[in-house]
């Protein structure tokens, strides 16, 4: 999975990945993001190229949310419809800032 991480400015991390957050890639995605989370206040996950999310991906999102709720905020942008459907189905839309 192709993952791009960018520190936009002090305390702000922008993550863009392409592919599926499935059994194959979710763990890698979570690890790479978590490694960069020190001193991050604003985490932006760009889901423009995420075509699919499985429960294991939701798990990663939940972990990230739980960590970020301690040090700042998490925002998911450009969510595509299939992924949005899953987030809605599982109630994740209720606590995650999604746009």
């Amino acid at each position, binding site marked *: 999975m192709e993952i791009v991480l960018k520190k936009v400015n002090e305390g702000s991390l922008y993550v863009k990945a392409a592919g599926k957050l499935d*059994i*194959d890639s979710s763990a890698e995605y979570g690890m790479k993001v978590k490694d960069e989370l020190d001193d991050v206040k604003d985490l932006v996950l760009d889901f423009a190229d995420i075509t699919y999310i499985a429960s294991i991906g939701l798990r990663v999102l939940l972990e990230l949310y739980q960590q970020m709720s301690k040090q700042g905020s998490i925002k998911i942008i450009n969510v595509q419809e299939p992924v949005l459907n899953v987030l809605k189905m599982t109630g994740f839309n209720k606590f995650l800032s999604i746009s």
Partner: protein
Amino acid sequence: MSFNTIKSKIILISALMLVTLSFLLSFFAYLYLENGKTLILKGFSFHISNFAEKVNKDIISIENNAKDLALQGEMFNHIDKNRNMALFTTINIFNNYPNSLGGGIWFEPNVIDPAKRRYCIYVYRNKNNEIIPDEQFESEEYDYHNKSWYREIFPNVTKENNVEWSLPYYEKEGSNTLMVTAGAGIYDNGRTIGISTVDWEISSIIKSVSEMKPTPNSFALLGDKHHNAIIALTDPYMEKSELLGKPLDTIPWYNENLKAITYFNYQNQKFIPYVKNLDNGMVLIICIPKFELFAYLVKHVVILLTIFILLGIIVSWLLYYGLKKYIDNPIKKLTDLAHKIGEGDLNTEIKIEKPYEFAKLAQTFNNMAKDIKNITKERQSIESELSLAKEIQASSLPNVFPPFPDKREFDIFAGMEPAKEVGGDFYDFYFIDENNFMFLIADVSGKGIPAALFMMTTKTLINYIAQSSMSPAEMIETINQKICENNKQGFFITMLVGIVNIKTGKVIFINCGHNPPLVKHNDGGFKYLELESNIVLGAFANAEFAVSEGILGKGDTIFVYTDGITEAVNSSDEQYGEERLLQTINKVSDENIREIATAVKSNVKEFAQGVAQSDDMTMLIFRYEGSEENEAEEIQDDNCRIYSGIASKENYKHYLEWLNNVCNMWKLHDDIKGKLELVSEEIYTNIFSYAYPEQEGRVEVVLARENSAITCIFRDKGIPYNPLERPDPDVTLPPENRDAGGLGIFMVKNTVDEISYEYEDECNILTMTIFMPN
């Protein structure tokens, strides 16, 4: 010897020249001969005329002698009858005629002396050329009156024609020789009282006539026409003595018209008669054998012609010798050298010094041989390099079969039958990752070293790029770009790539302008497979490539080839063609895929009937044997697909590919596909995570299609567990209090339209149905 050689032509020309010359010479010889004949005839005529004139002179002299004697006789009778005086005068007269032998005056009986019956005076010329009287004739015993000559002459003389000739006779009393006598009359008052005679010894005439012998075998006749008597004859074929005095007709060749004819035949020879009438009425005929007349001339001409012919032969021989030496021999030498060069012997040199042109040509030949030698050396080294190149090229293609003996999932065989030179066909195959096996067959446009180099580069490039885990389309696009970048020579490549997942049997084809593959599903025959068509490689850097996908079942066979097979031609210029290939390949027993290659190759060769192969023939055969540990799929029918395999995180990819293929095949909506993917991932993950926590186990997935719904059944033999019994997680809880457990099955339940669980035959069976939107 062929007529079309220089030698024969020049000999012909020489011969023609010789013949022409001979004709001319013969013509001149003929003219010379004719002219010579005329001259000779004239010469002889003149000669004989002269002789006749001489004889005439003798005759006239004799006749005059006779006349003088007669006059003297008249005077003797008339004046004094003084015998001494008469004798003296007679001797004097004879002295005046040196040619006369002898003669006298003879009187009739009792004319001079009435007492004497006979009275004559006779003198003759002795051997000392003295004229002396011969008194034996004066004796009474010599009855001259009865002698033939007297009786012939006396009655015939007249005053007007006073000289008469006797016939030849033998004078027994005198010289006892054959002679003729001329006589003139002695008159007294108109009465003939006697005759004078002058003797002409025939032997002397014959002697003269014999001298008158222009050629050895010529002969003469002296005849007395008046008396019609033969006087002298030198005809060697006749008995002369018996003929003398006989009529002229006695001679067989004689006739009155001899003067008018040019020749007569006698004793099998041709004789030319020269007839001269003498003044006393005699005729002199000289007969010369024509052969002898011209013998000298003919001899002369023959010698001349012989010299000419000898000269001609010598000239011809010199010409032939010259030609042979200066043209034929050099040509032969040059030909021999050319033969030797042709046979590969380049070390022979020839030396020709003359003529200059051939010397130059020989030098050229020698130089040529040297050049050929050098060129051959170069070519040999080029050829060895070429064959080396061919070997390198051949060895660059994988040629150990089976290449992956430990892989039971497939069998592959490939081979290239190169055309004469190194060519542009190639094939290759390798794993591009653990499960994806790629094979390709390609044909570089063009032949020879450049195509081979390009092929090698391209083959390496493809191998390199194929390992870089791109998607197949990306991979080909990248390869195409790289080829375009380095393609200044304008080569292009047709290529067919197949990528088979050996675990699932999924196959991806990318056809870049190549011949369509032949594919056989296990139960049917080979068929040409229509693929998405693409542009050839190397044409446009930005070209995009479409892939075609399919699923291989156990025993399915793919046959790919290059146009060297379908475009092989026979002696009638027919192409082997795709139809023939299809027929051939469907006739082959294909238990072993090598047999397919062997059969196709031999069938193409049989078809070509010995016509040289103009292009490489390359074949690659791939057979999918199925995955042992992961029998990917058993196709039930078009509406039902079954997947079976070991459930593991690694194998999930294969399952997912299978699922994708089925979805694509059924052309399912992306939404349904997404749902199936989501459901599959959650259930599959649960199975390998929870149903088989300790050791790996099998999962079987059935996808069934109905008009309005897709049913998906998961079976496993793991720990019995009904996921539907698990309470749903509370999705309304704030995140702080949530864990992620149970979310998966919750999502499944919310995604599918129906879901049920059974445990049967130690199997967890989860059946889900998704309704299709209208």
